[in-house]
C-alpha cells in the first residue's frame, strides 16, 4: 500500500513536465556543457526501495536544479533544494525532510564528437542540514554515430553530524551507453559502482547497480529515466532505485 502511494506520488510530481528530453543519462553526467546563455530547469525524483536488511525501506529524493551555460566550455548549476521522504525501520527521521542545496560547475576540455575523447571536470559543493559535501568528477564521453558512451569517476567527501564531525569518503565510478533511436527517443543502460570509505579509512565492500534507461524529448521539454537493481547484497543499500529527471529549456 505504502509503495503504491509512493509510486503515485512519483507520478504526480512527474506528470506536469513529462512531455520530453536533453540528458541521455540520470546517474552519469555527460561531457558536453550547455550553450552560453542557455538556461534549463530540471526536476529530479529518485525512488529507492527495499534494502536487504530492511524490506520496509522506502525513500523518495527530490532535487530542483537550475542549469545555465556561462561560456562555450563552462556551465554552472544551482540545486535549489534537495529534500526527501523516507520510511522504514532503518530510517532515523521518517517523513519529509530538507537535506541540502548545492552549487555545481562543469568545465569542458574536449568534445566527444569533434575530438577523439570528450573530457570534462565537475565540481559540486553541497551544504545543508548537518551536512557538507564536496564531489569531484572526471567525465569521459565518446559519441560514435547514434551511440554515446560515458564514464564518470567520482570522489566524494562528506562531513556530517551536529558539529560536522563525522567524516567519510566515497569513490564512485559509473558507465553508460545510449543509442539514439530517433531524435525524440534514446535508449540505453547505466551501471554504478560505489565504494564507501568511513572516516577515510579502510574501504567497505563495494556495491554495484545496473539497469536500463530511456530518454524522450519534445520541443523544449525532455525526460529521462533509469531503473537500477542492486547486483550485490549490501545490507544498507536499496535493492531497487528508479531515477527520473524532467527538464525544460528556456
Amino acid at each position, binding site marked *: 500500500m505504502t509503495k503504491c502511494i509512493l509510486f503515485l506520488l512519483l507520478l504526480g510530481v512527474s506528470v506536469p513536465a513529462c512531455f520530453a528530453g*536533453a540528458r541521455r543519462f540520470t546517474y552519469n553526467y555527460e561531457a*558536453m556543457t*550547455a*550553450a*552560453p*546563455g*542557455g538556461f534549463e530547469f530540471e526536476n529530479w525524483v529518485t525512488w529507492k526501495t527495499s534494502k536487504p536488511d530492511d524490506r520496509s525501506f522506502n525513500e523518495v529524493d527530490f532535487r530542483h536544479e537550475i542549469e545555465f*551555460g556561462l561560456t*562555450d566550455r563552462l556551465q554552472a548549476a544551482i540545486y535549489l533544494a534537495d529534500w526527501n521522504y523516507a520510511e522504514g525501520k532503518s530510517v532515523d527521521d521518517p517523513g519529509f525532510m530538507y537535506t541540502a542545496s548545492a552549487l555545481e560547475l562543469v568545465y569542458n576540455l574536449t*568534445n*566527444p*564528437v*569533434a575530438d*577523439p*575523447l570528450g573530457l570534462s571536470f565537475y565540481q559540486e559543493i553541497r551544504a545543508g542540514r548537518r551536512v557538507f559535501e564536496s564531489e569531484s568528477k572526471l567525465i*569521459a564521453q*565518446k*559519441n*560514435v*554515430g*547514434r551511440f554515446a*558512451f560515458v*564514464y564518470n569517476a567520482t570522489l566524494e567527501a562528506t562531513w556530517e553530524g551536529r558539529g560536522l564531525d563525522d567524516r567519510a569518503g566515497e569513490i564512485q*565510478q559509473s*558507465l553508460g*551507453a545510449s543509442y*539514439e533511436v530517433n*531524435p525524440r527517443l534514446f535508449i540505453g543502460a547505466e*551501471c554504478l*559502482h560505489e*565504494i564507501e570509505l568511513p572516516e577515510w579509512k579502510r574501504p567497505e565492500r*563495494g556495491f*554495484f547497480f545496473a539497469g536500463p534507461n530511456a530518454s524522450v*524529448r519534445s520541443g*523544449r521539454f525532455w525526460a529521462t529515466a533509469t531503473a537500477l537493481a542492486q*547486483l*550485490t547484497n549490501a545490507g544498507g543499500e536499496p535493492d531497487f532505485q528508479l531515477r527520473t529527471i524532467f527538464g525544460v*529549456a528556456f
Partner: protein
Amino acid sequence: MIRTPIIAAATLVVVAFSGCETTSTSAPPVRGAMVQAAAREQVDEQTLIAGRELLLRRCTECHSLPVVSEHPRAEWPVILQRMSGRANLTPAQHAGVLAYILAAHG
C-alpha cells in the same frame, strides 16, 4: 570482484572509440572545393570553419551529428531555423552554420 569488469569495460570503450573519426562523412572538414563554392555566395573560409565547429559542438548537445546529405539542400534553412533557438545560436552563428551546411552539401 566487481571492480575488474567495470574497469575493463571502461577501458574497452575508451580504447575502441578514442581513435575513431566520426565526423568526416557527417560534417566533412572545410576543403578547397567547398571554399570556392562558398566564395560565390560571398561566404569566406573562416565563416565555414566556425560554422562547422558550431555544428559539431552545439547541435550534438541534443542529438547525433546530422549527415548533411540526408536532407535536400532546400530543407536545411527550415530545419536550422527550427533548431537554432534550442542551440542558442546568434543570428551570425546561425548564418555560419547554414553557410557551412550548404557548402558541404554541394
